Each structure stands twice: as structure tokens, then as C-alpha cells.
């Protein structure tokens, strides 16, 4: 999740100056879409895992049908993640393909705009397919038809990309180097996997082959063809950047053909075993069912493929010793990463170039020399800091100078404490896990304290752009905004789960008495709203250069937050919630924990910000941190009132209790 946030913000706000959206390498579009999909795809799985652990360890009720839960809720939440995950794997691989094909076809990619359209469309529609994994669970035909059509529709953007790749190859002069060989294998295998995917999108066909070897064959054709083959192509393509040496063509070709032949021998035959009725996930079967010889040939294919992979590994290992020197830009590629030596120096680029083309190394032949000679931006470091540039999201105009954190033990220490949390949860050592979770805040806030406008972090003003801590829409604000998108996805998944249990679970019942009254919940929300409004007003005043009473104002906002937490705590503990008896209460407890986590974090962060304002790290001259916390407060207040409306008001309107 954090990688998803980082990728989105980096791609949108830290491109080289001049690299507008239409000049962005196509690979970045793929990674941007994939990162956004991670933000929306993973939260349902995270929520489902939390709910499952609460049911397993604490006796809550979410998925147990006999006690008012519904096991199909687990399937929905899992596949809400599970199907987009297929595209989260495929999109970077398609990005490799779209990057490598133009280099070896020696011409620009055909249909750049069409491919961007296809990427965005695929990213969205892939979220509307999850029920095609659940066609046999008894969902009404019309609902199945929605997902069946959507599953077929997603083949259209995939087809657009395949035709664009074929057109690029058709109109170029193709060099069949090792990476291109693997791309060829990808095209053949992935098209077959895609076609069986369209077959599986048809409900009657899916019913026939559900849980059979046909599905196993399809999955491997999509994942191995769609992900492994481009991945090996990419490894060969970028290998010179890793080692400075070229792989062996002979070993590479043997590795490819053995893998390609072995893969097809193994998995193509599984289509037939599946159609002959062999179920998946069996380790043995009766003789004479017609599956024996097909499985024997599949096994032989598996050994051939294993030898192929071993040859590739051997090639990788040997090339470090025997590979010829790669030199600069050995494939004559067009993208910026080849504007360095192979392998690149530790600092990567001596200076940051201004970009005026989608194919900088083809259109600006002098670029590599100019970068190395320091003719770009940031050629001279202002100290022992790591500095980068921030640019605008659309046109990549230069916006700010950013100091990247330097070497520190704090992240490693924090990671170690979080590992203790996870291990203790697995071992059911809950008090230790809780203590470690609380302790992790020490490292988090220590790390945060020395970030931003802390004196140890100061930068000399640059002539070209302001320092990021002096700006209002720095990377922190973007990072918080993108993080809240994922946070909202988790919250909406929880509300979906609650709504699903209410309307679909056969044994669902509202708790006989409403222990969390609408009145107590309402009055608990008032100080939260006041805290959010107070922080919003302080930020607004700061925007107008009014920094008087900033410290006092932040203390008041923090105080309102504490009042809210006390009121909500009293409401929670004075109620007679019984999450082990009533699924409605199980959902309520999870929702309240979510709300407390957010308003609690906002309150602590505001107290922390008050201290920083007192020290002068937050001021009208250095406002960077204020808008970051402002949107978090607003989000916390909005989620509270949404929970109030959905979990306390709606059941009453629906006639509960």
C-alpha cells in the first residue's frame, strides 16, 4: 500500500521538468495505473483479513452463517481484491512489453494515446469482474450477466494493446535479440490465455469447467504468459544496467525455447484434461479415466520447462564473469534510464535534464553527454543533502526543491518494532503486540520530528524553485490525499460488508437493544467536528499570513479531539455491546475502532504540530504540514458522520430494535 502511494506521488509530482503527461514514458502510465489499483484493490483484502482474525481469535461474527454472518461475504471481499490483483500483476508486464517492443522495432510505439486509453479503461473495468469467480454460488442470473459482460469487455482494452504492439512490429525493423524473443513468447501465450478468459466469462461454460484443470490451464497461460515471460524479457533488457555486461545469446536462446516448449507441453494439455472432467486440487485419481497420458505428457513438459529455467539462471550467473561489456545504451533505447553508464554511478544522474520529447535519447542525441557534464538542473549539491525536484502533475513545470531524507536507523528500528507487532499477533501474545504497537509511535513521531522544516533538514534556497517546506501543496499533501483514497476504500468495504450482512445473510438479526444510542453518538461527534473546523480555520488564517495564536489554536483543536475521544470512549464502554453474540455489534466495534484510530491519530498529530509551531517549524513562512493534517481532520469527521448515519440512524429507519 505504501509503495502504491509512493509510486503515484512520485510519478505525478517528481518527473523531470518538461516531461508533461503526453511525454511521459508509456511504462509510467502502466505503473501509475497499477499503483492506483493497489490503493483500491488491497483494502478489501486487508479488511477481510482483520475480520477473519477477529472472528478466529476473538469470536466476532462476520462469516459464520449459523451465527448471523455469511461466508459469501468473505468471497466477495477476497475477490474484490483477487481479480484486480491479476491486472495489478499484468499491467507492469504489459508496461515492459510496450517499452521493449519499440526499442527492438526501432520505431516509436504505434497508438500511444490509444494505449493510455486502454490502460485507464482496463484499470477501472478490472474492478467490475470479481463475481465471475463466484458464478456457481447461486447469484441471480441478471447479476451474473453484469459480471459476464464486464469480463468480456475487459478483453477490448487488452486487444487494443495487442494490436498496437503488432502494428509497431509490423511497421518497424525488428531485431530479434533475447528480450524480443521472450516478448514473442508472451504474445503467443498471452493471446491464448486471453481467449480462454473470454470463454470462462460465459456463465454456462464457466459452470461446466469450474474448478477443473481447464481453469488451471487458463490461469497459467495468463499469469506465466502475461507476467513471467515479459518479466524475463525485462530482466534481460535491463540486465546491463545491473551488471554492466551482456548475457549469452546461445544460452539465452536455449533457455527460451526449452521454457516455451516445456510450458506449452505442460499447460496446453491441461485444457484437454479439464474438458475431460479432471477436477483441480487433486493429487491422485483412478486409472482409466482418460487423463493418464495427458498428465504424463504434462509432467514431461514440466521437466523440460524446469531445465529451461535452470539454463536462464545459469546464463544470469555466468554473465557476471563471462559477459561482454555492455557499454552505454547497448540496445539503442529511447528512454532516460539509458542516459547513464552501465552500470550507473551511485548518484545515477549528474544533473536533471529538461525534457522536450517522448523519446529523449532518440530526439536529443547529445543528452547523455549534457547530463554527465552537469548541464541540467541540480548539478551542484548545496551540501551533504539528497535533493530532488518537484514538478507540476500535468505539465511538469518546476515547482519546488525537495530534500530527501538521509541515512537513518529510525526506519529500520520502526520496522523491527512493527515486526514484533505482527509476530505477537500470530502467536496470540496480544498484550505484547499492543505494547509494541504503542511503542512504534515513539519511532514514528521521532522520525517525523526531524523531518519537514526541522533545522537539521534546512536547505539553501535555490534560484529556480522554492523549498518544499515553504509551499502549500507539497508532496506530503499529495501523499496524504492518495493515502486517504486507500483508507476510504477500506472504510467503504466495511460499510459494504455491513450492508451485505444486513440484506443478504440468512440468519442476520439486529441486536435486540440499541446500546449505542443516536444521541450519545451525536454528541460524541460534536467536539470532533469542532476540532476539524478549528484546524481548518487555523490553516486558512495561516494562508493569509496570520500566524498569531497558531500554537493556542492547535492546542484547542487537540483539546477538542481529546474531548471527542473521551466522549466516544464513554459511549463505547457504557454500552452493552456484545460482538460475540450479535454480528451487528461486531461491525459496530470494528467501525468504532476505525474511527478512534483516525480521530486519535489526528489528535496526537495536532498536539505534535502545536509543539512544532511553538518551536517555529510550522509558520506562515513554512506552512507545508498544516494542509496535510487539515485533510486528515476533515476525513476523520466525514467518516464519523457517515458511520453515524449508516450504523446508528439507518437501522432505526429500517425498523431495527
Amino acid at each position, binding site marked *: 500500500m505504501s509503495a502504491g502511494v509512493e509510486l503515484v506521488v512520485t510519478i505525478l509530482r517528481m518527473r523531470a521538468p518538461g516531461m508533461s503527461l503526453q511525454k511521459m514514458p508509456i511504462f509510467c502510465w502502466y505503473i501509475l495505473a497499477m499503483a492506483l489499483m493497489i490503493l483500491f484493490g488491497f483494502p478489501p483484502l486487508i479488511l477481510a483479513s482483520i475480520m477473519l482474525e477477529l472472528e478466529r481469535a476473538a469470536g466476532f461474527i462476520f462469516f459464520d452463517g449459523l451465527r448471523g454472518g455469511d461466508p459469501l461475504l468473505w468471497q466477495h471481499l477476497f475477490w474484490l481484491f483477487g481479480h484486480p490483483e491479476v491486472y495489478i500483476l499484468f499491467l507492469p508486464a504489459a508496461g515492459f512489453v510496450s517499452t521493449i517492443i519499440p526499442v527492438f522495432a526501432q520505431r516509436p510505439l504505434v497508438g500511444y494515446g490509444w494505449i493510455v486509453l486502454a490502460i485507464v479503461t482496463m484499470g477501472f473495468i478490472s474492478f467490475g469482474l470479481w463475481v465471475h469467480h463466484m458464478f456457481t454460488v447461486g447469484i441471480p442470473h*441478471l447479476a451474473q450477466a453484469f459480471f459476464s459482460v464486464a469480463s468480456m469487455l475487459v478483453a477490448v482494452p487488452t486487444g487494443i494493446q495487442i494490436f498496437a504492439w503488432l502494428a509497431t512490429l509490423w511497421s518497424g525493423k525488428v531485431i530479434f535479440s533475447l528480450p524480443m524473443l521472450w516478448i514473442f513468447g508472451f504474445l503467443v501465450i498471452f493471446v491464448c490465455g486471453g481467449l480462454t478468459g473470454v470463454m470462462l466469462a460465459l456463465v454456462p461454460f464457466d459452470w461446466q469447467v469450474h474448478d477443473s484443470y481447464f481453469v488451471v490451464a487458463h490461469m497459467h497461460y495468463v499469469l506465466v504468459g502475461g507476467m513471467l515471460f515479459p518479466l524475463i524479457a525485462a530482466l534481460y533488457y535491463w540486465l546491463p544496467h545491473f551488471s554492466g555486461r551482456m548475457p549469452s545469446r546461445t544460452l539465452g536462446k536455449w533457455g527460451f525455447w526449452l521454457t516455451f516448449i516445456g510450458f506449452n507441453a505442460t499447460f496446453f494439455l491441461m485444457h484437454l484434461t479439464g474438458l475431460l472432467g479432471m477436477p483441480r486440487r487433486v493429487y491422485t485419481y483412478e486409472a482409466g479415466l482418460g487423463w493418464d497420458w495427458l498428465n504424463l505428457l504434462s509432467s514431461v513438459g514440466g521437466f523440460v520447462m524446469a531445465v529451461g529455467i535452470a539454463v536462464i539462471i545459469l546464463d544470469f550467473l555466468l554473465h557476471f564473469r563471462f559477459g561482454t561489456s555492455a557499454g552505454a545504451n547497448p540496445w539503442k533505447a529511447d528512454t532516460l534510464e539509458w542516459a547513464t553508464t552501465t552500470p550507473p554511478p551511485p548518484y545515477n544522474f549528474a544533473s536533471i535534464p529538461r525534457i522536450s520529447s517522448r523519446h529523449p535519447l532518440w530526439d536529443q542525441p547529445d543528452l547523455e553527454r549534457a547530463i554527465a557534464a552537469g548541464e541540467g538542473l541540480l548539478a551542484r549539491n548545496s551540501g551533504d543533502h539528497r535533493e530532488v525536484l518537484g514538478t507540476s502533475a500535468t505539465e511538469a513545470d518546476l515547482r519546488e526543491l525537495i530534500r530527501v531524507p538521509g541515512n537513518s536507523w529510525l526506519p529500520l528500528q520502526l520496522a523491527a518494532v512493527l515486526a514484533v507487532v505482527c509476530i505477537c499477533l500470530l502467536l496470540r501474545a496480544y498484550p505484547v503486540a499492543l505494547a509494541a504497537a504503542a511503542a512504534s509511535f515513539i519511532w514514528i513521531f521521532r522520525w517525523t520530528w526531524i523531518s519537514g522544516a526541522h533545522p537539521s533538514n534546512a536547505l539553501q534556497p535555490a534560484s529556480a524553485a522554492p523549498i518544499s517546506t515553504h509551499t502549500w501543496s507539497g508532496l506530503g499533501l499529495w501523499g496524504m490525499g492518495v493515502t486517504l483514497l486507500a483508507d476510504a476504500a477500506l472504510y467503504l468495504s466495511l460499510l459494504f460488508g455491513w450492508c451485505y450482512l444486513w440484506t443478504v445473510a440468512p440468519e442476520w438479526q439486529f441486536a435486540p437493544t440499541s446500546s449505542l444510542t443516536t444521541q450519545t453518538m451525536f454528541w460524541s461527534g460534536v467536539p470532533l467536528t469542532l476540532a476539524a473546523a478549528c484546524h481548518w480555520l487555523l490553516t486558512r488564517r495561516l494562508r493569509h499570513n496570520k500566524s498569531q495564536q497558531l500554537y493556542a489554536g492547535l492546542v484547542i483543536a487537540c483539546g477538542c479531539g481529546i474531548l471527542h475521544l473521551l466522549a466516544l470512549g464513554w459511549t463505547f464502554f457504557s454500552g452493552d455491546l456484545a460482538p460475540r453474540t450479535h454480528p451487528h455489534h461486531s461491525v459496530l466495534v470494528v467501525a468504532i475502532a476505525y474511527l478512534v484510530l483516525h480521530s486519535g491519530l489526528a489528535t496526537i498529530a495536532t498536539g505534535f504540530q502545536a509543539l512544532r509551531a511553538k518551536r517555529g517549524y510550522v509558520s506562515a513562512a513554512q506552512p507545508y504540514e498544516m494542509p496535510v493534517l487539515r485533510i486528515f481532520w476533515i476525513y476523520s469527521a466525514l467518516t464519523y458522520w457517515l458511520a453515524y448515519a449508516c450504523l446508528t440512524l439507518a437501522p432505526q429507519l429500517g425498523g431495527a430494535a
Partner: protein
Amino acid sequence: MKLPADHPLHLVIGLTIWSVWFIAAYGGLSVFCSANAVGGNEFTTINIGLLVFTALTCVLLGALAVWCWRRGRGFPGRVSAGIYIAAVIATAGVGAPIIYLPPCI
């Protein structure tokens, strides 16, 4: 605040509208079928409601596509118009079974 036709947010607005339509149609259908014991092969009020909703969504997306195509300049405007059209196709395509399938069996 009016969003210019070549603003990059248009790259995601069309399919976000499709997503909202999809959730509302699937969720609305599921809730309706849970609350009402509708059997048989008859064409019901939920079909009519979903069809109207689908048609209105298509009209909205189509209008946005035309607006983006006419007003947008260069890359973001053209691609956004294309994505709005993709959203129209996705909405109409996924919504087409509403015409001939009963809602709750």
C-alpha cells in the same frame, strides 16, 4: 469551479461514473431481490428502473464525451473523450442484459 475540458481529471471521471453506476445497479438489484420475493420470468419494475438509470448514465457520459472532444485541446482532451466513450460502451454493454433477464432468479 468549472473543470477545463483538457484537465487530466477527465481521464478518470468517466469510468468513475461507470463504477458508481455499476455499484448502484448491482447493489440496488441485490437489495431489491433480498427485500422482495420476486420469482418467475416477468419483466419487473426493477428492470424498468435499472433501464432508465442506465439510459440516463449513458446520456450523461455521452454528453461529457462530446463536450470533451469539442472543447479539449491536445492529448488529455482527446484521450479523455475516448475514455468517456469507453464508459458509455461499458455502461450500455453491462446494462444490456437488463432488457431480457428477470431480476431475481
